């Protein structure tokens, strides 16, 4: 939602930023002189980090350069529709667009975006001395092409982590009862069996104590892609099925053709995930990422996989969350052998999510937009932005005192991101991301409602994915 942290803090921060920019006044006002009075327009999803750009960084940039920024923060679906339509039709409405990590390959395949590295090389007057790709975390690698040129300036990055309720897990009575029932100590789950046991245990605990508490959140909306994402990006990999089980060699999905979408591992993963619904709050089949975070914040779940952008406010903001100070952060539970595979560089254990701002080729104010993207990519603006939106894109941001303070309150979420971020990965490099998702999702929803068995659903999905890939002309 619109970050209200934002507006109030905005004034204070803006003045700080103004001070910062006077230090660099030479560069920003000099470089921007030819574009003074121009207006650049951008579109993004309305998230706390975006709203920070809208409320704080945009106005600060205008003050430093005289370039106006019109920032359209809208819903996720709308943001995609409009950005894609604009670039597809080359209308030139937007001068910078939000690029979610998973759509970048589609955009690169279509040459929608300006090569930022190249543009700065071509016009050195525009290149800010502060802007260096090396300052960023490895997340920026997702926005590079094969030659290492940057096409997007990361503005937010999160990992989807395993959140659990510390208060429940550390309660001695619970520990004892758990040990008595399952024969091992109650602790954040390391593997799927433990996770399931804990989910079962706390669901029963909720019933016995007449509390509205269930074992695990499940992001299982039966009409929204969120559920599809949770499975393919966060659950399937922990069973050792990576990149949706699609084999780029011939673009096959079914096991018969060399893919893994309907492999035994994938079927076990889906069965496990659907099995969690028994131990999930009743709203789970209507839950997208938003409701999962809301359920966890309401204290209705003992554990769950939650997108990182929510971790911070769940753990710290008492206006929005019932579980402030009670949240633990850990790595997702894994099947045996997956961690070794991942460390050997073969896969990943969860979703590294986020996005960047890029410049469409059709933009008519590319130079002004370049300046803006460099402005928000400065090291000096990162820490406040990180606190407002719990996002980190610069390596150095981790060491900022404000961020460290936040890190302590969130049970080390930022530390986990810093140390284990490498185990997570963004979406696979497919240009047909949304197409395959939409083609297979109907069967997936049927699996959640129980109309299809996990095995049948995955078989049908593999078939549908291959048909779609053929139809699109990738699969021969």
């Amino acid at each position, binding site marked *: 939602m619109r970050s209200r942290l934002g507006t109030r803090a905005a004034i204070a921060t803006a003045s700080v930023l103004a001070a910062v920019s006077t230090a660099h006044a030479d560069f920003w006002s000099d470089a921007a002189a030819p574009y003074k009075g121009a207006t650049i327009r951008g579109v993004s999803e309305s998230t706390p980090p975006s709203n920070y750009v809208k409320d704080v960084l945009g106005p600060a940039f205008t003050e430093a350069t005289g370039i106006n920024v019109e920032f359209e923060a809208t819903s996720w679906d709308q943001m995609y529709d409009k950005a894609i339509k604009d670039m597809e039709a080359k209308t030139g409405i937007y001068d910078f667009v939000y690029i979610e990590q998973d759509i970048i390959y589609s955009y690169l395949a279509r040459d929608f975006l300006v090569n930022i590295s190249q543009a700065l090389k071509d016009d050195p007057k525009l290149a800010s001395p502060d802007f260096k790709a090396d300052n960023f975390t490895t997340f920026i690698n997702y926005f590079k092409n094969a030659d290492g040129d940057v096409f997007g300036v990361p503005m937010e990055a999160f990992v989807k982590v395993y959140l659990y309720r510390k208060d429940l897990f550390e309660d001695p009575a619970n520990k004892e009862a758990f040990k008595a029932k399952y024969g091992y100590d109650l602790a954040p789950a390391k593997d799927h069996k433990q996770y399931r046991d804990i989910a079962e245990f706390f669901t029963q605990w909720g019933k016995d104590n007449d509390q509205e508490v269930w074992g695990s959140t499940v992001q299982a909306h039966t009409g929204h892609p969120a559920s599809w994402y949770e499975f393919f990006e966060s659950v399937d990999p922990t069973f050792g099925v990576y990149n949706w089980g699609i084999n780029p060699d011939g673009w096959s999905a079914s096991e018969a053709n060399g893919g893994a979408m309907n492999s035994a591992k994938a079927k076990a993963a889906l069965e496990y995930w659907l099995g969690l619904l028994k131990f999930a709050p009743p709203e789970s089949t209507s839950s997208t990422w938003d409701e999962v975070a809301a359920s966890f914040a309401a204290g209705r779940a003992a554990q769950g996989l939650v997108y990182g952008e929510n971790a911070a406010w769940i753990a710290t903001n008492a206006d929005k969350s019932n579980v402030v100070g009670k949240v633990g952060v850990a790595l997702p539970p894994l099947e045996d052998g997956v961690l070794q595979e991942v460390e050997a560089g073969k896969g990943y254990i969860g979703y590294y999510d986020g996005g960047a701002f890029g410049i469409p080729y059709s933009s008519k104010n590319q130079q002004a937009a370049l300046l803006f993207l460099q402005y928000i990519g400065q090291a000096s603006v990162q820490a406040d932005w990180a606190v407002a939106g719990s996002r980190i894109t610069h390596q150095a941001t981790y060491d900022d005192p404000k961020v460290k303070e936040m890190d302590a309150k969130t049970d080390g979420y930022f530390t986990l991101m810093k140390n284990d971020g490498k185990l997570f990965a963004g979406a696979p490099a497919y240009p047909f991301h949304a*197409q395959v998702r939409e*083609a297979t999702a109907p069967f997936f929803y049927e699996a959640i409602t129980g109309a299809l068995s996990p095995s049948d659903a995955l078989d049908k999905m593999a078939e549908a994915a291959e048909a779609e890939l053929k139809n699109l002309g990738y699969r021969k």
Partner: protein
Amino acid sequence: MRSTTIGWLMLAPTLLILTVFGVVPFVYVLVVGFTDWNAFAADPTAHFAGVENYRRLVFDGQFLNSLWKTLWFAIFAVVSQVVLGYFLAQLLMKDIPFKGFFRTVHTLPLMVAPIAVGATWRLLTVPGLGPLPYYLERWFGIEYRLGTYADQAFLTTIIMDVWHWTPLVTLTMLAGLASMPKEPFEQAQIDGANKLQIFWHITLPMLKPTILATVFIRMMDALRTVDEVWMLTGGGPGAATRYVGLHIWRVVFPKTDYGYGAAMSLLTLYLTIVMCWLLYAALVARRELPKAE
């Protein structure tokens, strides 16, 4: 005598706007419907594909299913609205205290934006937040989960539509009832007809034009419902409430399947027009009949 030129001039702005904003996009869609254009295909340019899209469509189970769902949704919703609207209009004809107040309250839902209707009903029906699932379970032992049970979701979309649009039907019915002459009713009562007979032989035939017009306009809008359902269920669970407007939206936007989506919407438009034309023919026939006798 009246000059037809002036008549055409008066029609001209309407025709112009409808042509520019209605026909031009239609022609565009018509053309795209014969291509294989998908923005993220291996070859993202559009190529002429003949009737290939339509050939795929007539075998597309998901699309045909969503058509059926939409049709049933529209029929159930519109029939309930007409029955309920008639009943309420009859009651509003009677002399009751605070009639104006009740009428205003009854008209309220009409004022709520469809997208807000969807949001409001979502607030009502989400487990853990909304009162409906809570009290249904508590008082009647019904497990109410829109995300899980297809029938419940389907029914809820109908109830939501009835809640939203019955007021419009009531108002048109009220107008129809109020304008009916009194004599036939008085005569029938003198002749000793009972209530059912009066309804069947006098009220219904006289109200028929109003009913048909209402059905026509409501049917048209029900068949293109998107906003409310998108907000409430997103088309789920599974494809239970993925009505054709929503289905097309998913194919055209997230999936960027422009060619196929264009074909799909043309086919839907075709079916809607044919259906409405039949209704319209019935309506016009009705209007001309008294003169013919």
